Structures are given as structure tokens and as C-alpha cells.
């Protein structure tokens, strides 16, 4: 069973979103997603200052099986891409909700965000997907 921390929000496409005390949000991929991808060998994160639209592919996670886009669940401006991942992509496998975060962004005021789910709803989604 995948680890789904109760204090985060989730997307249908298996990203998680954490709101930080300063109002910026941290984004990563879920434990389920990292498990489905398998061992990551390369992660590309966006550069600070880039403006991203809702649903725009803004990071790439590549494993021995597949390369997948990560979609931004919120519109805004990237404040930081996780610098650790260039040399240590496996951090996403080992600690998807901690050291393996992908990017932080400053959300655009008033902009729409994806349909974010609380943990229990995401858990249900995983069960119906049979993951």
C-alpha cells in the first residue's frame, strides 16, 4: 500500500502539493507514482523565475522504464527547482514527500488550480485504479 500523508493535497496525475508557511507551494510526485515508475535515473526540474500555467508540463522524471512529464497543479512562478535531484534522482524514490520534492512555486493570485484532492480521496482513487 502506498504512503499517502494526510497533510498534503493530491492530483489525479499523482502529484502532491504542500503549502509552505510563506504562501509558496512545494510540489512532488507521490509514493504511488515513484513506485510505478521504478528506479529514477534522471530528473529535470524547472528553473527559478519560469512562469508556469495550470497543467503545464514543467518537470520530467525518467526511470529505466519510462519518462514522464510532471504537470503543474497550480499556475505561478517557479521559485526553486530542487537542486539535489540532478545528482541524486533516487531521492524521489527514497523520500518522495521529503528530500525528493521537485519544485517550489509562488502561485498566481486568484488563478484557478487543478482539482486538488485531500489524502482520503486520493487513497480511494488509488484503490479504484487497482494500484
Amino acid at each position, binding site marked *: 500500500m502506498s504512503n499517502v500523508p494526510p497533510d498534503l493535497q493530491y492530483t489525479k496525475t499523482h502529484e502532491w502539493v504542500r503549502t509552505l508557511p510563506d504562501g509558496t507551494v512545494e510540489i512532488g510526485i507521490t509514493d504511488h507514482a515513484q513506485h510505478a515508475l521504478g528506479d529514477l*535515473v*534522471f530528473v529535470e526540474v524547472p528553473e527559478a523565475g519560469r512562469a508556469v500555467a495550470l497543467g503545464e508540463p514543467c518537470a520530467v522524471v525518467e526511470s*529505466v522504464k*519510462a519518462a*514522464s*512529464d510532471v504537470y503543474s497543479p497550480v499556475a505561478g512562478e517557479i521559485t526553486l527547482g530542487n537542486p539535489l535531484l540532478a545528482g541524486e*534522482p533516487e531521492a524521489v524514490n527514497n523520500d518522495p514527500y521529503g528530500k525528493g520534492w521537485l519544485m517550489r512555486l509562488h502561485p498566481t493570485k486568484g488563478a484557478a488550480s487543478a482539482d486538488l484532492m485531500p489524502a482520503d480521496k486520493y487513497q480511494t482513487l488509488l484503490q479504484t485504479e487497482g494500484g
Partner: protein
Amino acid sequence: MMRTHDKASKLIFEYSHPGRGATDQWPQPLPATATSDLPQRLLRTKPPLLPEVGELEAVRHFTRLSQLNFSIDTHFYPLGSCTMKYNPKACNQYAMLPEFLGRHPLAPESHGQGFLACMYELQEMLKEVTGMQGVALSPMAGAHGEFAGVAMIRAYHRSRGDLARNEIIVPEAAHGTNPATATMCGCIVREIPVNDEGDIELDALRAAVGPNTAGIMLTNPSTLGVFERRIEEVARIVHTAGGLLYYDGANLNAILGKVRPGDMGFDVIHMNLHKTFSTPHGGGGPGAGAVGVSARLRPFLPIPIVGLEEGHRYRWLAEKDLPQSIGRLSGFMGNAGVLLRAYIYMRMLGREGMSQVGEYATLNANYLLTRLKQAGFDAAYPSRRASHEFIITLKRQARELDVTTMDFAKRLLDHGIHAPTTYFPLLVPECLLIEPTETESKDVLDAFVAAMTQIQQEAEQEPERVTSAPHTMPVRRLDDVRAAKQLDLRWKPTA
């Protein structure tokens, strides 16, 4: 299956002994009077580090390596979306006639009329079989043909002053090369979902098209192994929005002689001659990604193309003839030898044989799918008929037995079967994409079902037998993570 694997895995450098070698066959040393125009500073001062082995050792080493190959000539190779069909030896033989081999690409056209006639007829046959209005043969691989196709789509929009069209739509099940090609051509990729039955979500398509739409890239049948049933509606939506339709020919084998991409409304297609038209395929060897276009894209075809004048004289069409061409994508006529093989294959099939390819490819796939379902395997799209390939998912085995698709794939090698495509398309978890092709007999298909059934029994009764496979190959499980992260293929002398 018993081979001397320990020896096979040694590099030829590791057999080396100083002073050993077939000295009789060494080149004569240059006479002292011989002059060279190479500058002194570029000349080697130390002899190169080459393996020193006897002739027989060299022969045995390379013969052993060649015997380790998994190939279509030695094994069943049901690699989905790759169409690993038999390559008839006659194609090889005729393409290697000395008159073809000795032809110089810069020789005058009058000296190569036979070769040019073959290329012209190949263009015409490909037009007929795809329903397109023009064909160019020079792209040298599938992805190269894709590049040509999207470059033509861009050139078309630019020629009309329609400069805003820079978005290419791809369904989520697309071949990975489709979004890669669009990006290479400077386009932005927009992905759209497919529904539970494998068809494109038309509402998502309607929402995605607009004044920025350059086109859509599709393969039909899709990589899900099912025919896109509403293709005409898809074409209408994209065309109405001002976009063009690109057909990825990877799955052309399924519809050969039955349905034509031109009739479905496609504007441009690339054909993997090394798949559908049976030229040797794999290992990064020479491919051929011919492109076909509708009338409006014809001026943009890559050059050269072979033209026919006065009904009997063939000549190269180049910049002068096609001033709006996207240009040259290869030296001369692409991989000419591969094109010849495809030409001979098509001539041997004839019109009747062509539609039998599609029929038997789909029959074999549906037979195999049905038998696997009977054996208890789960089809990814149980309500759909297979095209020339189909997907089974081992999600249940992974969950209940902790035996994954990768484990099944590795265990199949022990049965002398090349693994089907694994973990693609990405949207089906734990999937095997299986394409038997029309050139396999029922016996081979039955043997595949027997192997899969036996592996399933092992997975239930002694799973470690499967999870530790392969047991009969020269190597076991490779560390693919380390290979991706720290690739180092260079041999270094230890002494």
C-alpha cells in the same frame, strides 16, 4: 541452449598475448621510400593497443558472439509495435546483385536507370498502398521520417503566412518519438487522453484544437492495439480547426491492403519500411522512413525524389523541381539498399499478398489474444478486438504473487522467446505489448501460450524461479539503473 557462456562474455582483449597473431596476414610494411602527406605531428609514436590473438581464436570469439544473438532468424520475437517479421532471403539476394552494389551514387542518371526505376516504382506502390499523393524515400529511419513529416506540416503553415500554428496534439498512448519529433521541430506538445476502450476522447480533442494547432500525430491502430473507430470525426475536428493529420506508420502492418491512411483523412504519413515492408530491423541498423503526403503537402517533400519523363526516362527531382522542399535529409537516396529490399518484398507480395499481410497479422494477433485469455491472462481492453498487436496486463500477478511483467519477460528468454514489449504504452500498468506478425505459424503461437502458462504456474508455485530468471542466458539481471546513470563501456587494460 547450452553454450560456453563464460567464454562468450570475455572481451577479445582479454585473450590477448603479446606477440601472438596471424603475422602472415599483416600488411606489408611501407617501403622506406614511400612518402606521406600526413604532417609529422599527427603521426602515431606508439603502436595502437590492439588485441593480439591467433586467427582461430578470433574466429571462435566472434562466432560465439554471433550465436548469442536473439534474432528473428533464430527465435520468436513478438516485440509489440516493432513488427519483427521474417525478412525473406530473396530480398537480400536480389538487393545484393553486383549491378546494385557497384552503382556509384554520383554516376550519371543514364547509368542507373534500373535502380531509379525500382525507386520510382517503390514510390508509386507506397502511394497506392497508403492512399497518399506523393512519396519521398530518403529519410533513413522512422524518427527521421517523423521529423520530415512535421517539418512539412510547419512549412505548409508558414507558406500560408499562418505563423501561429506551433502546437502538435498527441494522444497519451502515442509512441514516444511523436512528442520528441514535435519538440525537435520547435512545436509545443499538447497531450490528450483516451477513454476506457482505447479511443481518443473527442471532447478533449475539441477543447485542444484552435488557431495554434499545427496538427495531430496519431497511429491507427493505436499503440493500445485497437483501431481508432472515430478517425473520420477526429480528422474533421482537426481539419476544421485548420490543423493537419500526421499518421505514424509504425502500425501500418495491421491495415495493409485493407484501409488507407489517405482515405482516413491523413495529410502525411511516415512508413517504417523496416517494419511493414520487412527489411532487416533492429540493433540500430539501417532503417528507412519513407514519407507520403496529401496533395497540399506535395511541394514540401524532402528531396531527392525520382521522377519519370516521357514515360521511360527516370531522373532525380531536386531543388529546381521542388523549390519549396524542406530540403535534403540524407546524402543521396537515403539507405538505398534497404529501399531495394522493401521494393523486392512488395513485388514478391503483389496486390493480393499485400492484403493477406494485414489479414494474417490480425488473425495471428487475435488467435494469440484469445488463447491467452482462455489461459487466464487479462487483456487490457477485453471488449475490443485486437489489431495486429494487443496488450495483456499482469497487474493481478504483480499484486497477488509479487511477480511482475519484467519477471515474466525475463523468464520467456529461458523458453527461447524474445520478450514482448514491456511497460509500454505507459498508461497500462504491468503491460506486455505482443505482436506476433503474419509470418509465424500456429505452432509457434501455441508454444508461446504454453510458455506463458508454464510461467504463470511457476509464479504461483515457485515464484523465485520466475523472479530470478533468466537462468539460461549468458547474463542474469543487468543493473539497468547503474547502466543509465554511470554508463562506462570502455575497456581499460589492467596491466
